[in-house]
Structures are given as structure tokens and as C-alpha cells.
């Protein structure tokens, strides 16, 4: 067999997962002039863009504009999209091996890490990602319900997701009505009685993961006052020493902003954000089977031998009266059927994007990973671009070494026929463009960026199917 990558015999690549990493990988793959590549991007959901559509907060439309770059990639004639097609259900690894020279997994980190405390699963305690998926109109979450009748809520964690959830809880219905938040979520949040949100960080203000623009935004919400406790935002000796050493201006500024919150006089806005630091939940208490409170332990910071300041619990406890809890303490990848997994890190077992055989630790020819399922959930959207570039460089090197799969039916038509057979309701890029137009059109009338379809059957109906 001749080496694939020519007009007569293009290199056929399947990418599983149409989020940022899938699109960046496609972009890199299609930008090699010396080799003819055809990319099929496959997603479990009917719509593309992954977390840009279902993760990025609805009040952050500017961040969502990154999809313009993905649309350019999708316009390439050698690119196809198959939405509503699930790996492991409609297509197996064997199916892909019969039709593609290479398969690349970009399925992200789809599940929450647990805190591991008693009461974590009480009614009223939710993984923050479920709330995020729900308010963004993720088809798997439209029927979820969240108890927004509570007046006090706690959000555990200080990463992006924690900050997004906090903002959405504290925005007024009028603010949310200008976004592309799911209609049902807008209605539910209109009735929300949440007035006070505690944002809980286990370490101090200098170690908080949020960016300075994010924290400023929290401090300037139109309908909520932001505050912090003076004793928790004062830097401890270890943090001071670390800042003195590194002279990290961004962190210094962040600490100043947060200390500013603590110094503010009480405001008169209807809702309130209380940023808490150096506290960890140890137990949730219940009344009638529902969360009624959270026991916190106060932490101090201690340096590891590599210099990171980590939280160590003291014996000082505190009870916080909250009836609603969102847990945002980290995410993990989910194993894919027939693909080696690294349980230690919650990722596909890989070396620089090459999937490894668990027994030999040698690369499995033709299998690759990129994005969060390769390195874990970290970085901003754009971090996935260099990450995908690394994997694609290895894919190209392996093609040059003639180390690919040997598909028996490498034609683009053969796999399309198979997909049509297994999933007649698959969504093409053209279908998506039509859905996108309808969403944007519907939004225009209401002064919103778009009004999302949130159910697969509604999308199919809109396409006349």
C-alpha cells in the first residue's frame, strides 16, 4: 500500500469531539500543504463547539466569538462535520479503524471531581458543571432542576466555573435576558430567591485561580455588592515572602483588588457576594433531607518542598448557613470504550498526544489525543492550540514513518454511508449553519445574541426532519 496523503489517496482522519481542541487539530491537519488530509469531525451532540457553546458563560459572548476561527476551518472542502454521532454507540473504534488512517480523541474532561465529604450528595448540593450545562442549554441537561428557592448559596472553588456560576446567580433577570442563556434557565432564574452567594477558596487571595478581569467583573456587578473578610484577605507571611521573591505584578494587583472588596462600605444592591478564603468544607448538614448548612474548617498555608503554598486544615471550625451548594473543585476525563486510560490523571494514556498501550507503554499506531483528555483540564481556550499542534506534529511524523492504521474502506463515501445507516439523524455542517441562522434570527427579535435550540428533536424539526 502506498503512503496516504496524496490527491488519489488522502490521509483520512477522524476527530472525536468538536470542541476547541477538535477544531484546532483540524486546522493544523488541514494546513499541511505537502500532504492531502481529509478530516471528519464527529460529536455526540448535534451542535459543534463543545464547551464554547455549553461551558463559556452566556454573559461572556466575546469569548464565544472564538467560533469564527472554527468556522473558517469548517469552510475547508476537506472538512466534514457529523453531529449527533456518538463514539462507542454509533461508531466503535473498530469502525473507525476500518475507515480512517488516524483517529484523534478530543473529548475533554466531562465529569466533576468530588470533594469527598459527608453530605455531598444531599438534595440542594450540585456539581457546578451540571448547572453550567443546564443554563447553557446542553441537550443532556434540559430536564435538570436546581433549588433556586434558597436565599443563601455557597460555591466551592475559585476557578473559572466557580466564578461563572457565582456571576450567573448574582445577575438580575434583566441582565441575563440580554444573553443567550437557555430560555428555561432564564425563566427559572427569574424566580430565583438567591440573595447571598459565598464563594469559597481553600487557599488565600494570592493563590486564587481566577484572573484579574474576572475578579474585577465580580466586584462591579450591577445587582450585587462584593465583599470579603478583612482577616482573610490580609496576606500571611508565606504568601508575602513568595510575592516578594517573584515580584509577580498580576498577583499583587489581584490581592489589591480583593482587599479593596473587604474595605468597601456596605452597599445597597439587592444581592451580595461574600468571598471567603482559607476555608474548606468538611461536611454538609441536612434538614428534611435537604442541605441546610455547611461546616467549614479554617486553613493555613504551608509551602511544599517545591515551593507551592498549599492549604493545611487547622482545628478552627465554622458553620455556614446555606441551602444551596455548587461544587466546582475540578474535572476529570471520562474513559472511552476501547481506548487506554490513565486513571492517575484522568486522561487517555498518552505521550505527547500518542495513545500508549498500557502493557508495553509503546504508542498504539493511529490513535491520538489532544486537549483536556490529553493533559487534563487546564488553561484557557487558546491553550488548546499549541497542545493540538504538538499532537498533529506527531501524527504527521508517524505518517512519514508509514505508521498509520490500514483502513479497508478509506473512501469518504463509505463512512458516510455507515453513519447514515447507524444514525439517520446525524447533523452535517450545512445543517448546523441552518440551525445557527435560525437561532440568531430568533435572538434578533428579542435583542439577544441568539435563542438556542436545547433539544435534539427541536433541531431536527427545524431542519424539516
Amino acid at each position: 500500500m502506498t503512503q496516504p496523503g496524496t490527491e488519489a489517496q488522502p490521509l483520512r482522519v477522524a476527530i472525536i469531539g468538536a470542541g476547541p481542541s477538535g477544531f484546532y487539530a483540524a486546522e493544523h491537519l488541514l494546513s499541511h500543504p505537502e500532504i492531502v488530509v481529509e478530516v471528519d469531525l464527529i460529536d455526540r451532540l448535534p451542535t459543534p463547539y463543545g464547551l464554547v457553546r455549553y461551558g463559556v458563560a452566556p454573559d461572556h459572548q466575546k469569548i464565544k466569538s472564538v467560533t469564527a476561527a472554527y468556522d473558517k476551518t469548517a469552510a475547508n472542502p476537506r472538512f466534514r462535520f457529523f453531529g449527533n454521532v456518538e463514539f462507542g454507540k454509533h461508531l466503535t473504534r473498530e469502525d473507525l479503524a476500518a475507515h480512517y488512517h488516524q483517529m484523534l480523541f478530543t473529548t475533554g474532561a466531562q465529569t466533576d471531581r468530588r470533594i469527598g465529604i459527608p453530605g455531598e450528595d444531599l438534595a440542594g448540593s450540585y456539581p457546578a458543571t451540571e448547572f453550567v450545562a443546564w443554563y447553557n442549554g446542553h441537550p443532556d441537561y434540559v430536564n435538570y432542576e436546581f433549588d433556586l428557592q434558597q436565599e443563601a448559596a455557597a460555591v466551592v472553588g475559585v476557578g473559572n466555573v466557580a466564578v461563572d456560576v457565582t456571576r450567573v446567580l448574582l445577575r438580575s433577570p434583566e441582565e441575563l435576558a440580554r444573553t443567550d442563556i437557555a430560555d428555561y434557565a432564564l425563566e427559572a432564574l427569574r424566580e430565583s430567591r438567591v440573595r447571598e452567594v459565598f464563594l469559597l477558596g481553600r487557599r488565600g487571595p494570592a493563590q486564587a485561580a481566577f484572573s484579574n478581569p474576572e475578579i474585577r467583573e465580580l466586584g462591579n456587578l450591577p445587582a450585587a455588592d462584593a465583599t470579603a473578610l478583612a482577616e482573610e484577605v490580609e496576606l500571611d507571611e508565606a504568601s508575602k515572602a513568595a510575592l516578594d521573591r517573584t515580584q509577580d505584578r498580576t498577583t499583587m494587583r489581584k490581592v489589591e483588588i480583593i482587599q479593596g472588596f473587604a474595605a468597601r462600605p456596605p452597599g445597597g444592591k439587592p444581592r451580595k457576594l461574600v468571598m471567603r478564603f482559607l476555608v474548606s468544607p468538611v461536611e454538609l448538614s441536612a434538614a428534611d433531607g435537604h442541605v441546610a448548612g455547611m461546616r467549614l474548617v479554617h486553613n493555613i498555608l504551608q509551602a511544599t518542598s517545591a515551593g507551592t503554598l498549599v492549604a493545611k486544615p487547622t482545628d478552627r471550625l465554622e458553620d455556614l448557613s446555606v441551602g444551596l451548594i455548587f461544587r466546582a473543585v475540578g474535572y476529570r476525563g471520562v474513559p472511552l470504550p476501547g481506548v487506554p486510560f490513565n486513571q492517575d490523571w484522568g486522561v487517555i494514556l498518552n505521550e505527547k498526544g500518542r495513545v500508549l498501550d498500557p502493557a508495553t507503554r509503546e504508542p498504539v499506531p493511529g490513535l491520538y489525543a489532544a486537549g483536556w483528555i490529553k493533559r487534563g483540564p487546564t488553561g484557557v481556550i487558546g491553550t488548546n492550540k499549541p497542545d493540538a499542534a504538538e499532537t498533529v506534529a506527531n501524527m504527521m511524523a508517524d505518517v512519514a514513518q508509514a505508521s498509520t492504521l490500514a483502513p479497508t474502506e478509506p473512501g469518504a463515501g463509505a463512512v458516510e454511508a455507515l453513519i447514515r445507516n447507524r444514525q439517520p439523524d446525524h447533523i452535517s455542517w450545512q445543517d448546523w449553519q441552518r440551525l445557527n441562522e435560525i437561532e440568531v434570527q430568533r435572538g434578533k427579535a428579542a435583542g439577544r445574541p441568539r435563542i438556542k435550540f436545547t433539544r435534539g428533536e427541536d433541531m431536527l424539526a427545524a431542519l424539516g426532519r
Partner: protein
Amino acid sequence: MNIAHMLARKGGHVFTVRPEQTIREALAELATRNIGALVVVDENDRPIGIISERDVVRWAVLDEHLFGRTVRELMTKNVIVGSPEDDLKSVAHTMTEMRVRHLPVVVGGRLVGIVSIGDVVKAQRDEYEGEVATLQIQITDDRS
């Protein structure tokens, strides 16, 4: 970004050597694997030291017959180790300040990986590139 994320894409390979092995054997391993250091582990796979190309070079100046010596004699015993939750910023700072090029990563005494200064540089570069790429998209907002 923390050490866990840096190790996740490294396949979990950690190349080790036993203290009673010879420097000749250790050098052969460094050359075959194309790496700069080996973690020295005891019979229970617990890290007890590290031996780097730099250690060998320093000894070679003093002792021309070092190839037959044991790893135990040359290894650095007071090893700075990392844990998966150590963040990139502090690891980068510590490795630069302490002039350490390899950081074995340990969980409950068990060796789970190693981070080299090259990994740190790459992780930092990817982080900066990613931020720049994201900012570029947001300021150009190119919908043409």
C-alpha cells in the same frame, strides 16, 4: 497548570536506577533513553536520590575510574521533590532558584513521575501562547 497536567501527557514513564548499579549502567540508560537524569529508587520503588549527567561530569574530573563506582556513591541524596498539585509558577521559580533541572514527583512516598526544566519551559510557553491566541481572537473579533 500544575504538575499533574504536565505529567498527564508524559505517559507515566519514569526511568529509575538502583543504588547498587554501576555508573556505567546508569550512563548507558541515560544515553539509550536520551534523558538527563535517573531517579534512584530502593527495593520498594521509593525515591532515595537522583543522579544526573551533571553529577557524573563533576566526578569525572576528580576520578577517571568512576565508571565502576556505584550510583549510591555519586547520587544527590537531598532531593527536592514535587507533588501533583504543585503549580507551574512555583515549580518554575523553585527549579530556577535552586538550579534543579529534574523534579521527581511523589505521592505518599511513591514515585509517580518526573518533571524536567524542559517540561516547565514548554508548559510555560504553551500557557503564554494560549493566552495570546485567545486575546488575539477577542480583540480582532474577525467575523468576515
